[in-house]
């Protein structure tokens, strides 16, 4: 299972000549760490990296904002049309990307957003599954808490901020982790809505790099290592949480 990762790192530390030798060497004869700085010279890797961090961060902020508000409404406010609207939301979740991709592209085109960060951020600032997760959690909070807050003169929005959010840390972390992974790894959408190199996220940058320099294995492996490194670090810190939330989300559907 780990062999592809080990091989990736080993290749990324060899000289180009040694990488191409057959039969291959396992450990590099000459450890060539210079491959890593070279990635940054060869492509605008640092730029891709910053782009991705920016896109991921802003998207996540949007998902939290829209998600908490919508989940709160679905769980705690008895507005007209709530049940129907909730079913509509769930139905939207099941519609596959190709169905809305082309018209979304046209809308982005008409907004003048193609090849901008907005095209990669705004359409993804709502995540229905996150709304669903948060709603399930907020529904379980006891009504007494809300009554107490109301008696203390807390407004509805105040209750959201002072009662719901502090009591929803676990599901909020789950939502955060899910969406960081999804944003960081997203490829299809940014591939389509970007044209210029300067705003490409890391995955699209790496994909084009692999097309343009398809035989430059040492640099490709170094770039791949750098691409997955941030998520691997996140994964090691939060693995228990990540794995368990995936397991739970799978069973809930």
């Amino acid at each position, binding site marked *: 299972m780990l062999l592809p990762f080990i091989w990736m790192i080993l290749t990324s530390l060899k000289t180009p000549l040694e990488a191409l030798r057959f039969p291959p060497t396992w450990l590099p004869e000459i450890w060539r760490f210079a491959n890593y700085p070279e990635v940054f010279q060869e492509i605008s890797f640092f730029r891709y990296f910053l782009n991705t961090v920016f896109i991921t961060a802003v998207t996540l902020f949007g998902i939290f904002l829209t998600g908490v508000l919508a989940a709160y409404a679905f769980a705690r406010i008895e507005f007209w049309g709530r049940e129907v609207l909730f079913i509509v939301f769930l139905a939207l979740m099941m519609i596959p990307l190709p169905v*809305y991709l082309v018209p979304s592209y046209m809308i982005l085109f008409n907004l003048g957003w193609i090849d901008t960060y907005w095209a990669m951020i705004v359409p993804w600032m709502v995540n229905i599954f996150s709304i669903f997760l948060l709603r399930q959690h907020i529904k379980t909070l006891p009504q007494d808490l809300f009554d107490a807050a109301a008696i203390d003169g807390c407004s509805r929005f105040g209750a959201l901020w002072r009662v719901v959010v502090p009591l929803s840390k676990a599901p909020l972390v789950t939502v955060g982790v899910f969406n960081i992974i999804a944003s960081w790894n997203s490829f299809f959408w940014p591939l389509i809505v970007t044209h210029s190199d300067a705003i490409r996220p890391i995955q699209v940058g790496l994909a084009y790099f692999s097309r343009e320099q398809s035989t430059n294995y040492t640099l490709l492996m170094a770039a791949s290592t750098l691409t997955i490194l941030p998520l691997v670090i996140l994964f090691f810190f939060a693995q228990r949480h990540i794995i368990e939330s995936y397991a739970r989300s799978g069973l809930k559907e």
Partner: protein
Amino acid sequence: MNRRLKETIAGYCYLLPALVILIIFRIIPILYSVRISLYDWGMAGPRKFVGLKNYLDVLSDPVFWQSLLNTGWFVIFSVPLMLFLALFIALLLNTKIKGLGIYRTVYYLPVVTSIVAVSVVWKWILNPERGLLNYLLSFIGVKGIRWLEDPRGLFDIIFSSIGVKLPTILSGPSIAMLALIIMSVWKGLGYNIVIYLAGLQNIPNQYYEAAKIDGAGRWSIFRNVTWHLISPTTFYILIMSTIVAFETFAQVWIMTGPPPGGPLGTTKVVMYYFYEQSFELWRLGYGAAIAFFAFLIILTLTILQRVGLEKRVHYA
């Protein structure tokens, strides 16, 4: 103002940000794609209403059927393979062995890493002359498989060695597709193991104890207790991994070709064909019609999941 109205206004205020984005980037596009599919629609130039022509064209397009067949082979091979491997490993991990956490982490790592990076790495591993896989295979006497370049079908190779010529439709996944299948199983396995582990841990211990008291052997316990009680999980995995398999795209874009989908179009899956028609040839109406058929298949599978879960599956 009455309470009900007040609640309604408040509710929609809270929903507003999510609603605005969903309406603009989901609901309008979904409705609009129906319209696009009825037109001969390019990115520029005149648009002509053609009625159902795009749909009919898709149905009589040999490349579409080829892409559906390719996707079908991908599903038929990768989904059961993944299912059995995942169940097998989950059963091993469920026996309270030491270091479960480490194993889980190891199997899970490919799931969180990006499909792009993983595809780049596997393309190198699958390199026919200098790749790691062919090097390892050479120890067991298998030499020179041209993984991503070989368009010959698997069954075709097997049957032609005994002198039987198969019709094209039965020639099986190409060697190149097989490479994508191996890589995708490796990538998705950990997710399914975790789902299975969660399912296994939900089986109450008394069933096993009862079976033991009745003198059931290991295989019998597995067959009559575990396999039965785990069937909702199996069904869930079956449907979910089929849906995911239908969305296969990045592997094809990065690992195959040039041109992607090669050799000889044997790795051109539905999703890639949709991309090619819509965003390389800018035949947007045609692309929308392909998307509609893909949706129809996924919808059927989802309905099957619901019906199946309610009727055929055993619950504890």
